[in-house]
C-alpha cells in the first residue's frame, strides 16, 4: 500500500522533472534558432494577424467590463466612507494599467489563442505533419514555435495597451452615468496621479506573460501523444498551466519591478 503510493508519487515526480527538462530544451532551442537562423517572417505575420484578430474583441470586452465594475465598486465604497465618489479615475486607471489589463489580457489570450496553438500543433504531431516538416528540410521549432513566440511578443503588449484604454473607457462610462463624475474630473484623477513608470510597470509584464503563454502552448502541442484524446488533453493542459503561471509569475514580476523602482 505505502509502496504503491510512493511508487505513484515517484513516477509523477520523474514525469514532472522530465517535462520540465523538455520545456527547458524547447526554450533553449527556440532562443538558439532566433539568434542563429533566418526567421520565418511570413509565418510570424500570419500569426500576428491571427492571434490579434482572434483575441482583440474578447480582450477589449473583458477590459471594458472590468473597468466598469471597478468604477462601480470604487464609487460605491468611497460614497460609503466619504459620502461622495472620490478618486474613481485614479483607482480604475492604476488597477487596470498596472495589474488587471496585463493579467486579464494574458489569461484571455491563453484561453483563446493559446488553446488554438496547442490544438493545431498537437494535431500536426499526431498526424505526423511535424515529422513531415523534418523530412522536408525544416525544423518545427523554427517553422512553428518561433513565429508564434515572436507574434505573442508583438501582439500581447498591443492588446494590453488597447485593454488599458477600453477598460478606462468602461470605467468612465459608469463613473459618469452612475455617479455623475464629469469627464474632466475623471481625466484629472488619472493624469494627476499616474506617471509613465506606472504604465511601464504593467507593459513590461506583458512580455513575461507573452513568453510563458506562447512557450507553454507550443510545448504542449509538440509533446502531444495519442490521437484526438491526446490533443484534447494537451489543449486543456496548455490553457490551465498558462493561466496558473501567468498569475504566479505576475507576483514575481511585480516584486522584481518594485525592487528596481518601477512602481
Amino acid at each position, binding site marked *: 500500500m505505502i509502496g504503491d503510493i510512493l511508487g505513484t508519487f515517484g513516477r509523477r515526480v520523474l514525469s514532472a522533472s522530465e517535462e520540465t527538462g523538455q520545456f527547458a530544451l524547447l526554450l533553449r532551442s527556440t532562443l538558439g534558432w532566433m539568434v542563429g537562423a533566418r526567421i520565418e517572417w511570413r509565418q510570424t505575420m500570419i500569426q500576428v494577424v491571427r492571434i490579434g484578430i482572434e483575441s482583440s474583441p474578447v480582450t477589449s470586452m473583458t477590459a471594458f467590463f472590468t473597468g466598469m465594475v471597478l468604477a462601480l465598486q470604487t464609487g460605491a465604497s468611497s460614497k460609503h466612507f466619504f459620502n461622495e465618489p472620490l478618486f474613481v479615475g485614479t483607482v480604475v486607471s492604476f488597477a487596470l494599467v498596472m495589474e488587471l489589463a496585463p493579467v486579464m489580457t494574458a489569461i484571455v489570450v491563453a484561453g483563446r489563442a493559446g488553446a488554438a496553438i496547442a490544438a493545431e500543433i498537437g494535431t500536426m504531431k499526431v498526424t505526423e505533419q511535424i515529422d*513531415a516538416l523534418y523530412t*522536408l528540410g525544416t525544423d518545427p521549432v523554427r517553422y512553428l514555435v518561433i513565429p508564434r513566440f515572436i507574434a505573442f511578443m508583438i501582439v500581447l503588449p498591443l492588446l494590453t495597451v488597447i485593454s488599458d484604454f477600453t477598460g478606462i473607457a468602461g470605467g468612465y462610462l459608469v463613473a459618469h452615468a452612475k455617479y455623475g463624475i464629469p469627464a474632466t474630473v475623471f481625466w484629472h484623477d488619472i493624469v494627476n496621479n499616474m506617471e509613465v513608470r506606472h504604465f511601464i510597470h504593467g507593459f513590461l509584464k506583458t512580455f513575461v506573460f507573452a513568453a510563458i503563454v506562447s512557450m507553454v502552448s507550443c510545448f504542449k502541442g509538440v509533446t502531444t501523444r495519442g490521437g484526438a484524446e491526446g490533443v484534447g488533453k494537451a489543449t486543456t493542459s496548455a490553457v490551465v498551466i498558462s493561466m496558473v503561471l501567468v498569475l504566479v509569475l505576475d507576483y514575481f514580476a511585480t516584486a522584481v519591478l518594485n525592487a528596481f523602482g518601477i512602481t
Partner: protein
Amino acid sequence: MIDAESVVKSFGPRTILRGVDLRVETGETLAIIGGSGCGKSTFLKCVIGLHRPDSGTILVDGVDVTRLKTEADIADYRRRFGYLFQEGALFDSMTVWENITFGLRYLTDIPSGKYRRIASECLALVGLKDIEDFKPAELSGGMKKRVALARAIAAQPSYILYDEPTTGLDPIMSDVISDLILDLQQQLKITAIVVTHDMKSAYKVASRMAMFHEGTVRQVAHPDIIRISTDPYVRQFVDGLSQGPIKMKLKEFEAEGSSLAHGKN
C-alpha cells in the same frame, strides 16, 4: 546504397529493433513486410534520421546517420530522401501546390517563381491535374496519397521511403499506387524502401523483400523466393494465416492476462 548493421532502437522499456542488418542496393525497391509493431516503420524513421538508433550503424552513400551531430548535418543528410507518410501528412492549412513545393524552399535553390510549374509536373507524374489550389480536406484518401507522393518526389530525391503506401485504400486505388511506385522507380531510377502489409502490392513493386519479426530480419529474398519460403514465420505471414508461430505471441499474452486476472502474477 543503404547499409544498416546491428540497428537497435528502444522506446523506454520496449525494444523495437533488436539488431537489424539490411542492405538496399542502388536502384532497387526493397519491400519490408511484417506484422504490426514489428519495427518496420521505426526502421524507416531511423534511416531518415527521425529516430536515433541506440546502437548500430546506418550508412547511406557512405554517410552514417547515427553519427550526425548538428541539425545542419542531419538536414543535409535528409536532402537525399523523399518520405511518404502512412496518412500522407499533408499540411492542412496549405493548398496542394504549396504542400508539394514546401520542401523546395529548404532543400533546393530553385527560385520560387518556378514552384507552381513544378507542382503541376509532379502532380502529372502521379496522375493528377487541376487540383493545385485545393486544400487537403477537399481530396479523397487516394488523391491525398498521390499528392503526398508528388511532394515526396518534388525535390528529386535519390531515395524514397514509403510507409504503408496502400493502407486505408480500396483495392483498385492500392493497385494504382503500386503502379505509381513502379513507374517512379522506372522513370526516375529512385532507390526505394516500401514498408507494407499489403502482400499484393509488395509482390508487385519489390525487387527484394525483407520479412521483419519482433525487431529482427527473418528473411531477405527475391519475391519469388518469399512466395515459396519454408520459414514458418514468413510462410504464415505471406499466406495470411491466423494459426502459426506469430499467433503464439497472442496466446502467450492471453495466458499472461488470464493469470494476472486471477492474481497469480
